[in-house]
């Protein structure tokens, strides 16, 4: 039985996990690109990413691109599974009993 995940259910994190789960396996997205697409502020996105990372739902890696530090983010397999389970739980709420 799928269960709701309070970490994922927060609106911005729900949006974030939904976005990251659209990436192919092995793909990572740049922090700034993600921030622009989701229309979040630096601080807001950073805080939500830290929460998701502490649960092991996403991974963040820092790299230097053209001598500038960049952070690339991806959903982990555990994060994808947790998100799928959360969506399943949401759908089950709407099923007639």
């Amino acid at each position, binding site marked *: 039985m799928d269960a709701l995940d309070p970490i994922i259910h927060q609106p911005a994190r729900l949006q974030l996990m939904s976005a990251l789960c*659209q990436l192919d396996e092995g*793909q990572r997205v740049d922090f700034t690109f993600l921030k622009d697409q989701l229309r979040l502020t630096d601080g807001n996105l950073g805080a939500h990413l830290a929460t998701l990372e502490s649960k092991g739902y996403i991974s963040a890696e820092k790299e230097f691109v053209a001598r500038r530090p960049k952070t690339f983010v991806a959903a982990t397999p555990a994060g994808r599974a947790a998100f799928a389970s959360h969506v399943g739980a949401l759908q089950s709420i709407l099923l007639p009993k």
Partner: protein
Amino acid sequence: MNISPEEATQALRDIEASRVAMRSAFRSHRGHLYLWLWGSIWVAVSLLCWNGTPLGWRISGWLSLAGVAASFVIGTLQGRQVRSRIDKRFIAVCIAILVFGYVALPIALGPPHSYKAAYALGMLVWMQIYVVGGIWFDNYLLWVGIAVTVLVLASLLFLPGAFWACTLLAALVLVGTGSYVRYFWR
């Protein structure tokens, strides 16, 4: 954790909105720019070489070099937004195909006997990389690779008079697939 059906409906709507927006954003990183670029270059080369003008043959070399430089720029810029892990086995297969097509084959069979054969070889080598890329990553590359290979081989072997028309069609397959990937790919 308990939520009402209304909250669940709203959450699912938010998920769907985010999914659609991100799919659209990520779609711009699925290779359509390369397909447009090389499709356009091949269209230009096919039109320039249609009447067998030597000028067209010379310009095609420079166009291809410009295409390589532009591909490098596209890869660098896009890699700053969405990155894929470098698959060393795929890179190794690509290098093997390039060495086989551009080095081993000409040594074993001799250099291409005509400009058409040389151009066809160039296209076919890259299309085999598309086929492998299709098996490895994205299905559409497989079909593009097969379609262009069939067009180029059939025209070279059986319809030499229609060779440039077929390479033009092959180039349009690339451009069309690029547009499909950019605007309709889910």
